C-alpha cells in the first residue's frame, strides 16, 4: 500500500463512547470500531475479529485489549495483534484526540472494502 496524505475527519466526542466501551462508525469500507480505554485513550480497528469475523465493537474492553464476543479471542487495540495462544491481526485506522474530539484518518476510509 502506498502512503497517502491523511485527512482528519471528526466523528464524534470522546464522551460519546463509554469508558471501557466502543461504538461503530459506518463507512463505505465497512464498520469501524472505535474504542475508548479506561485511561481515555482512543483506538480504531475494523470491526472484524481475525478469527471468524466477530464484531469487536461488541466485546469487553480491558486495558488496551478487547475480547471478541464470539469466541473470546483477545485483540490488542494499539496494533490489532491477537494476544495469547491464538494468532492473527486485526487491521486498524489512525485515530487521534483533539481536545475531546475524535478524529480519524478519512483517507483510509475511501476505496473498496478491505
Amino acid at each position, binding site marked *: 500500500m502506498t502512503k497517502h496524505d491523511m485527512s482528519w475527519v471528526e*466523528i*464524534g466526542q470522546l464522551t*460519546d*463512547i*463509554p*469508558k*471501557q*466501551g466502543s*461504538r*461503530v*462508525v*459506518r*463507512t*463505505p469500507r465497512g*464498520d469501524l470500531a*472505535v474504542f475508548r*480505554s*479506561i*485511561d481515555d485513550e482512543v483506538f480504531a480497528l475494523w470491526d472484524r475479529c481475525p478469527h*471468524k*469475523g*466477530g*464484531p469487536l465493537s*461488541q*466485546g*469487553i*474492553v*480491558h*486495558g488496551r*485489549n478487547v*475480547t471478541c*464476543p*464470539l469466541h*473470546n479471542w*483477545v485483540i490488542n487495540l494499539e496494533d490489532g495483534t491477537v494476544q495469547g495462544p491464538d494468532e492473527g491481526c486485526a487491521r486498524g485506522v489512525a485515530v487521534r484526540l483533539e481536545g475531546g474530539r475524535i478524529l480519524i484518518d478519512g483517507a483510509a*476510509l475511501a476505496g473498496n472494502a478491505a
Partner: protein
Amino acid sequence: MTSPAKQKLVIVGNGMAPGRMLEHLLEAAPERFEITIFNAEPRVNYDRIMLSPVLSGEKAYEDIVIHDDAWYEGHGIRLLKGARVTGIDRSAKTVTAADGTVAAYDKLVVATGSGPIVIPVPGHKLPGVVAYRDLDDVEAMLAAAGKGGHAVVIGGGLLGLEAAAGLKMRGMEVTVLHLMGHLMERQLDPAAGYLLERSMEARGIRIITRANTHAIVGESHVEAVRLDDDTEIPADLVVMAVGIRPAAELAREAGIEAGRGVLVDDAMLTSDPDILAIGECVEHRGICYGLVAPLYEMAKVAAKTLIGEEAAYGGSVTATKLKVTGVDLYSAGDFAEAEGREEIVLRDAAAGVYKRLVLESNRIIGVVLYGETADGPWFFDLLKKGTDVTELRDTLIFGQAYQGGAQLDPMAAVAALPDDAEICGCNGISKGTIVKAIREKGLTALAEVRAHTKASASCGTCTGLVEQLMQLTLGDAYSKSAVEPVCGCTDLGHDDVRRLIVAKELKSIPALMQELEWRSSGGCAKCRPALNYYLLATWPEEYRDDGQSRFVNERVHANIQKNGLYSVVPRMWGGLTNPTELRAIADVADKFAIPMVKMTGGQRVDLVGVKKEDLPAIWADLSKVGLVSGHAYGKALRTVKTCVGSTWCRFGTQDAMGLGIKLEKSLWGSWTPAKVKLAVSGCPRNCSESTCKDVGIICVDSGYEIHYAGAAGLDIKGTEVLCHAKTEEETVEIVAALIQLYREQGRYLERIYKWAKRVGEESIKEAVVDDLDKRRALVERFAISQKHAQDDPWAARARGADAHEFAPLYDFAKLEAAE
C-alpha cells in the same frame, strides 16, 4: 421397659472445651448420663476463636455456631441459656443458678473459662470501655464501630491485634497501646514484632509501644485515653485486651482447691473426686492455658474419666497463628536468648520474610516465622518430637522442601510429612488421621473432610494443608477449585473475593481492584462480569450496574449470533401466550424483515437474525401488548416450562400452569451466577421434564415435590429432591429462598447443580427448608433485590435508555446520501 437410672451430669459453662467433651462423651456412651448445662451466655455453643472474623465481617455469628439448638435437643441435653451458676453445694451435690434454678449432680464438670483482665485505671467503668471475650463484647464493638470515630485498643497481643484489625476493617480509626517494647512479646521476638508493627501500620493502624495507660477520660462516656506521659488519644471506644484470668472463683468458694486456676490432676479431676474441671479455668501442673488445642486435649481426657476409662493429660506445647487477613505469622515454643542456645535466622526484607529457629542441644525449642509460614507445622513437629536436627542444620531454615532433594513443590513438603505430624493444631488432627478418613470414607470435598475429621474446622488456617493432603491422596480425582483464582488478574478465588466484598464493604469495581490489589489495570473479560455480578448481588440497593463489565448479550439484552445479528425472545409466563401476543410477534417479524421465527426448547418464541439498531423499535412494539424481556440472553431466570396440569389433563393433580406463572412472576429479573431454568409438571409422569432442571416441581396429590440441581447440557444429571411442600405459597417461598442462597454462594458461571455439589445438599436443605428463620431471611433479602431488578430492560431501552448502544457513532453512508 425399664432402664437403669441414668447418672446426672451437670456442666457449668458452655464454651469450646465442654462442647468438645460432650462430643466425645456422646460418641462413647450416649445413654450414660442425663445432662444439664448451665450457660451464663444466652446462646448455644460457638467457636470463640472465630470472634475476630465476626468482628471484621468476614464471618457471621451463624457461621461460627458449633452446636445449634437442634443438636442439644437431639441428644436430649437440657441447655439452660443465660443461667449463671452462683453456688456449688458439695455436700448436697447440687448447683444453684442466679435465677434460682437448682440442679442435682452425680458428676459435675466446671468449665467456667476465663475472664478478661481489666486494668483498674480511673475511668475503666465508663460506658464505651469493653473487653474482648465473647459475642456480647463483639456486638458492643460493632455497635460502636457503626458510628465510626476513634477506637483505642489496650494490649498488643493476639486478641488486641485481631480486635484492632477488625475495627479498622469496620471503618474506625484505630490506635493500639502496648505496654511492652514490641507487639506480641510472649510469642514473638523483637525483630518479628517490628515487622508485625510495620504491617499493622501499613493497614492504617497506629501502634504505640511502651505505652502505659494512666487514665480513661470522659464525662458520661469514654472520650480519650491518657498515657503516663500525659499524651491524650481521642477514643469513642476502648477495648481492653491485656489478657485473661482463669475464672476459678466459683470452684474456690465451694472449697475446691485452686491456685491461679482450678487445680486438676492428669485425669482432669479436682480435689473433689466427683468434680472435674476443664478449659481455661484450670491450672494443670502449674500452667493455665488460653489456646484451643490444649482445651480440646483436656476435653478428650475428661470424657474418658467420666465414663471410667483411664486417660491422662500430659500438658501441651502450643503454637500460635495470628488471624489477621494478610498477615502471616507463626510462633511456637521458647525463643528467649539464653546460655547454650543457638539460633538460625533468615531475613528477606524485600519480601517481608523473617524466620528464626532457636536450638538447644541440636533440637528445635522455638520457632518464629513471619511472612512465610508454610513450614510452621513441620518445624513444630520437629520441636514437639525433640528430633535431633544435626543432619538438617545447613538447610533447616529453608524449610522442608529443601531437605533431601531440591524439590520446591509444596506438595512434596506435605508428602514428606510423617503420618503422625500434626496438621490441625486446634483439633490435634494428624496427617495419618486425615488420609485414613479420605481413603476409608471416600471423601472428596473439603467440607466432608472437615465434617469427618474436624481438621481445619476451627480457625481454618490449616485449610491449605488439608487441601494439599486431599490432592495428594486423591490425585486427579480432587479438583482444587476452591483455591483457583478468579483469573490472571489476581490470586484470590471467587469465595475470597465475595467474602472481602462484604468484609471491606467494597461497592465498585475500581474500589475492589484497588483494595484487593488487582494486577491489571481495569481487569479482564473474565473477572469483570464476575465482579459486576458479585457487587450487584451483595449491594442490590447501592451498586450501580456496570454495563461495560457485562458480556454483550446482557449489555444489549439480546443474544448475539455468529454473524453479529441478534435474537429476541419475549417472556411467555409459564409457557402461555395468546392471539394478541402472537399477532404482535408476527407483525414485528414482518415489519423488521426478521428472517427466522423459531420455537425454543423452553416454550417460547425466538425471533432470530435481528439487526442491533432495530432492537429498541422492536421492543417498543412488543411492549405495547405487554411482552417483556425473556432474559434468554442472561445469567438470570430463563424460562418456567409447564404442562397443562389439572386444568386440562386427566392425570393432573395440581394447577401446574398457575404455579409456573407464580414462580416466574416471583423470580424474573433477578441476576444469578449462571442461567436458571425451571419446570413444573402436573403429575409424576413429568411431561415438563422437571427432573433435569435447575429447579423442578412435580405436583402430587398431597402437594408439591421440589426438586433441584438437575442438568441437561454439558452434563446430564437428574435432580435431587429438596423437600415436599403443601401449598403453592410455600413452594414459591422455598424456591425464592433457594435462588437467593444460590445467588449469595454461587461462583460466577457455576450452575446450581455444581454449586449444590460443592457446598453440600445438607447445608442447602438446612437453610431453605429446615430452619424457618434462615428461610425467611433469605426470602426477605431476595425481595429487596427484586425490588430493583423487576424492571423490564426492554421497555426502558424502548424509552431511550442506553441509546448510544444501539446507534452508530457516525455514519458516512448517511452523510453521503444527505449530500
